[in-house]
């Protein structure tokens, strides 16, 4: 097993070759903020919260999809990064319709927590107030596109863990949204096994248990990593 050595915030770290900077940081006990990363499924680098500075590279790179290299010097907490992270979260808020006070996920939302983490107290960008639908055709679950941040965690968890691949991403830019089946009402998608993994995976209140009211959603993203470990390593540990 070959090992790469690097520094993160001036702390020397040694990790297995092929690991990502995010994994290396975790091993070194350094927390890098993430939203689209989910333990147990592949990474896509969608949210840009995990951006880090690497000496000698003049653009910021997402830690979740950047492999470590020998002698890399990584910084995760510079003023510039902090500013960008805050801006990213502000943009997420201004892009959708996030009304925490009446959201099912109020108090248990990764986006809300992230706003606190990055110290966002308001958005400097004007809100777009897009007109987005809600689909509550599924007997057990519902998706409110107003609250979706397009992290694609639902897409990956459904395809990679459940193997049903109900979710996908349609369109581009401001018209981009997640679809179920061939852009059918969720309740009509035969492929859906109603396993509920997407509910656990969704970091916001976008996907929730039908009937849940304000602040009632509790999600358990760790459950998914547990399922993966149980399946791959035959270890039922949490």
């Amino acid at each position, binding site marked *: 097993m070959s090992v790469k050595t690097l520094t993160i915030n001036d702390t020397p770290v040694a990790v297995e070759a092929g690991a990502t900077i995010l994994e290396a940081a975790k091993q070194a006990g350094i927390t890098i903020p993430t939203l689209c990363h989910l333990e147990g499924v592949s990474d896509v680098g969608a949210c840009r919260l995990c951006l880090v500075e690497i000496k000698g590279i003049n653009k910021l790179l997402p830690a979740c999809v950047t492999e470590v290299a020998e002698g890399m010097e990584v910084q995760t907490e510079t003023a510039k990064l902090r500013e960008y992270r805050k801006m990213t979260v502000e943009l997420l808020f201004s892009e959708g319709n996030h009304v925490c*006070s*009446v959201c*099912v996920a109020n108090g248990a939302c990764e986006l809300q927590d992230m706003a606190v983490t990055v110290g966002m107290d308001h958005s400097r960008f004007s809100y777009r107030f897009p007109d987005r*639908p*809600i689909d*509550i*055709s599924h*007997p057990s679950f*519902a998706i*409110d596109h107003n609250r979706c941040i397009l992290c694609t965690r639902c897409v990956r968890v459904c395809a990679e863990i459940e193997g049903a691949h109900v979710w996908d991403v349609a369109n581009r830019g401001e018209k981009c949204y997640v679809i179920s089946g061939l852009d059918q009402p969720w*309740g009509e998608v035969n492929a859906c096994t109603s396993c509920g993994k997407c509910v656990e995976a969704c970091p916001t209140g976008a996907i929730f248990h*039908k*009937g*849940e*009211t*304000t*602040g*009632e959603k509790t999600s358990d993203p760790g459950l998914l990593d547990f399922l993966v470990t149980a399946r791959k390593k035959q270890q039922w540990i949490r």
Partner: protein
Amino acid sequence: MSKTIVIDPITRIEGHAKISLFLDEQGEVSDARFHVVEYRGFEKFCEGRPFTEMAGITARICGICPVSHLLAAAKTGDKILAVQIPPAAVKLRRLMNLAQLTQSHALSFFHLSSPDFLLGWDSDPAKRNIFGLIAANPDLARAGIRLRQFGQTIIELLGARKIHAAWTVPGGVRSPLTPEGRAWIIERLPESFETINLALDLFKNLLDNFQTEVENFGKFPSLFMGLVSPTGEWEHYDGHLRFTDSEGNIVADHLSEDNYQDFIGESVENWSYLKFPYYKPLGYPEGMYRVGPLARINICSGFGTEAADRELQELRDRAGGVPTSSFYYHYARLVEILGCLERIARLMEDPDLLSPRVRAVGGVNNLNAIGVSEAPRGTLFHHYQVDDNGLIEKVNLIIATGNNNLAMNKTITQIAKHYIHGSEITEGMLNRVEAGIRCYDPCLSCSTHAAGQMPLHIQLVSFDGTILQEVYRD
């Protein structure tokens, strides 16, 4: 020369409004209008939301009485699910509404209205508020604040927060009362009884000096509407709707909220964002009715609890029958607090309050549903139409304060006619006009589905439209 006086905004009420007083050519008041000048649009932006969110969304209409919306929304939700909710949930919801009535009435009496009674209508407006009251009568002010806190804490014990506790849900409630919560309520009950008895004694002593107010603050015949229990007793959560007249005759009874459109019409005027509901069979505006504490005590046979029934009898004796003066709203509020406390005390003995079976589940089984509850300020209707999946297609809310709109306009006209003559208007006169509105403890945040402070703006406008006098108060 005719002119108009505008009071804008009106102070010590919840929300923002203004009053215009129209003077005729002799300088006498010819008409008065209570304008609600805020627009909020809740009915519109609820469209497209899941009905299960309605309690959470509509509770945000108001920070004073969110519980009323929580209840009306949940009751409408129960009907969409077509479920009968568990008995424990009914009792828990009742407990929360009783706590809500107590805290809101305490706020209205101690914080908002008692400065007028105790410090005087003509006292310095800068001190005529809860802080002035604290300086003048610290014990009473403290007791009042603690009584409100009692109600607020019960709400918090049930819903985990004082304001906007999204605890009522279609099908029931989220969680029962804890044994610790019950112990706290039982411990604080005696003090709450003491405070309300003190307030009642105080108010009754003052009442004899307020005969002019009693005669002029909205004393006129009107209908009264509200919920009564199946046996005709005072009710705040379930039961049926009843209309009575000023002589105490039952005009209509056993009405169901489901048919509210058959007996309540909603009219609009181009000078107010607040709708004007009226009793349909009598037409507009003859179908004027009043809701809220005064209406509830007028339509019922009694409270069914000992102390409140005694006080109700005394109130009726003092009024010489059915009280028709809106000044009696204050009195009715105090009697209601007493009745609520007695009911809370009674509920404390009910083991159901701790039952874990508090929520029925169901699908979308009705596409059209109407829920009703008695808010502190009166009867509140929520009406939802949903699609097959439960997304809201249409919402209509009839808010307690809205029900009183016609009566409030009539009240200020009566007060203005009595107190204001000629073009010189003193602050004390204006305060009385405002106080006429305050009798109803209107909640304009709710009624226009608006938030904010209530500074004061009065305009005196001549018959040709020129402003003769303008008074501002921040």
